[in-house]
């Protein structure tokens, strides 16, 4: 992720929306801080008020009471139209205007802001390239000539047109097929790596929330924040049965998916140089009462071979003549799920972890189990 954060902090303070004639407020006294440059996902069942809360931020719905601070400035003191021109807004299926070309759709906010023609044309081209649509082909197309996924990409490009620090996305990927949705999610994450906007993302799909969110706010009726935390923490330690119900049955599996190997305690094994004496290694393994040793490549420190105690019994000569080659390694960036996959696939008891081409430790089934247990423990203590 780039260091310069493109987004700004948003503070909601005691935000309430009451509709006349309704006993309960749609949004009831919501207070939260959305960190600059983070993707915060509002997730909750329909009727929880998640969309309403999001629309309070750009004042498409005017709050009954409370404060909205965007970059420390009171959003309610600005003219609503002006405010919205500097907050990107993406809705389902992109919300593209069918009577305008792709270029005209993207150019809407820049035109309102009275950019000159040349600047607008350049920006349109830049944005289309950014979302992976060739400008030569797509500028003059109409929305109905695009696939659902392409429409959604144009929707994102349009929201980014005037480079707003904040992006509001209201179930943007709800109307596309699962494969396209996964692709759009990946693209959004890649874009976010580059842009670091502050993104408020509304969805009812918990898996989508886990995948995209730096933080997830689980909302119940009246937009009550049941839990607001990083995905791993919510999965490891759901605040209550409501959240547990939302996570579903396979919370532990999802946790595997959001935890990186570099972030857990790895097992360590005896490491030896290729030319080390086999008998020596055997003695040392016996002393430590361990079974496996890993042979590291001398210069680079990469794991190259496995040897076990039985193979080295009564052995002599360099240790590299024994054992077998290391054929599967995983990187520190891999998720625990990928580590598990590697373990099962390689039919080995352990898989070495390599970070920046150097050996860091081992993952075993036990390591994974321990990691999940300790995540739960840590989350509980917090």
């Amino acid at each position: 992720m780039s260091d310069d954060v493109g987004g700004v902090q948003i503070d909601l303070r005691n935000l309430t929306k009451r509709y006349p004639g309704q006993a309960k407020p749609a949004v009831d006294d919501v207070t939260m801080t959305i960190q600059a440059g983070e993707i915060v996902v509002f997730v909750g069942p329909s009727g929880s008020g998640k969309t309403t809360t999001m629309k309070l931020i750009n004042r498409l719905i005017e709050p009954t009471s409370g404060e909205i601070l965007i970059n420390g400035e009171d959003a309610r003191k600005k003219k609503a139209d002006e405010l919205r021109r500097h907050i990107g807004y993406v809705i389902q299926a992109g919300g593209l205007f069918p009577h305008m070309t792709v270029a005209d759709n993207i150019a809407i906010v820049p035109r309102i802001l009275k950019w000159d023609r040349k600047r607008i044309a350049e920006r349109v081209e830049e944005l289309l390239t950014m979302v992976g649509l060739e400008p030569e082909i797509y500028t003059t197309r109409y929305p109905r000539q695009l696939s659902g996924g392409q429409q959604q990409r144009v929707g994102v490009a349009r929201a980014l047109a005037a480079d707003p620090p904040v992006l509001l996305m209201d179930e943007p990927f709800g109307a596309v097929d699962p494969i396209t949705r996964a692709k759009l999610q990946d693209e959004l994450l890649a874009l976010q790596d580059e842009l670091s906007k502050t993104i408020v993302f509304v969805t009812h799909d918990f898996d989508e929330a886990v995948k995209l969110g730096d933080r997830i706010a689980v909302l119940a009726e009246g937009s009550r924040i049941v839990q607001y935390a990083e995905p791993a923490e919510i999965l490891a330690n759901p605040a209550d049965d409501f959240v547990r119900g939302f996570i579903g049955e396979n919370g532990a599996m999802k946790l595997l998916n959001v935890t990186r190997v570099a972030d857990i305690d790895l097992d360590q094994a005896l490491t030896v140089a290729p030319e080390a004496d086999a008998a020596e290694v055997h003695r040392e393994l016996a002393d430590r009462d361990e079974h496996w040793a890993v042979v590291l490549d001398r210069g680079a420190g990469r794991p190259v071979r496995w040897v076990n105690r039985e193979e080295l019994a009564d052995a002599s000569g360099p240790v590299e003549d024994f054992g077998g080659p290391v054929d599967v390694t995983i990187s520190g960036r891999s998720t625990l799920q990928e580590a598990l996959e590697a373990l099962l696939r390689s039919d080995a008891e352990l898989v070495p972890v390599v970070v920046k081409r150097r050996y860091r430790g081992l993952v075993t089934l036990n390591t994974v189990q321990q990691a999940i247990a300790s995540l739960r423990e840590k989350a509980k203590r917090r």
Partner: protein
Amino acid sequence: MSFWDYVTSRWDLLLFETYQHASMVFQCVLLATVIGLAVAVATYRTSWLANLATGTASVIFTIPSFAMFGLMIPVFGLGVVPSVVALTLYALLPIIRNCIVGLSGVDPAMVDAARGMGMSRAMVLARVELPLAWPVILTGVRVSTMLTMGVAAIAAYVSGPGLGDEIFSGLARLGGANALNAALAGTLGIILLALLFDAAYILIGRLTTSRGLRV
């Protein structure tokens, strides 16, 4: 005298009356479009107001045309003014109704997206709602024109301009010389004009509807 002889002998007069007829219809529909659009824009977002507007237009529409022109006489006398007023009132219904249907038929998500991008109410109307509702609005104007074309003939009853004069004078002295020819000339002229206007609307529709909206 054969029908053809009749037409050629009075070519100049018929041409003038046709021109008057077309001009009157055009102006009344134009006036009705301006009024209808204004009424629709002012009412479409409040359902009871929209209903009131369409309801009122419907009531006006149910008044028999003869009665309507007759009612104009005590107020506006005879001639062009009562004809234009009555015709414009008739032309209103299809226009108001289609404008309201068209504007309120715009997908709320479109309006939401437009507002969310910081368009003012007026911008949303001009850049999103009207262009999207345009095909429906234009259909209303077209229907209204066809309707007005026929009703305009009755304007002759209040000494209004147009081809109605031919029809009325013909029917008044049926059996007399050239009576049938006159009625026929007036009727055919109106049919011809209607076809011409319709063709024009198809052309206008093509030219003014976004390619993105055509299926």
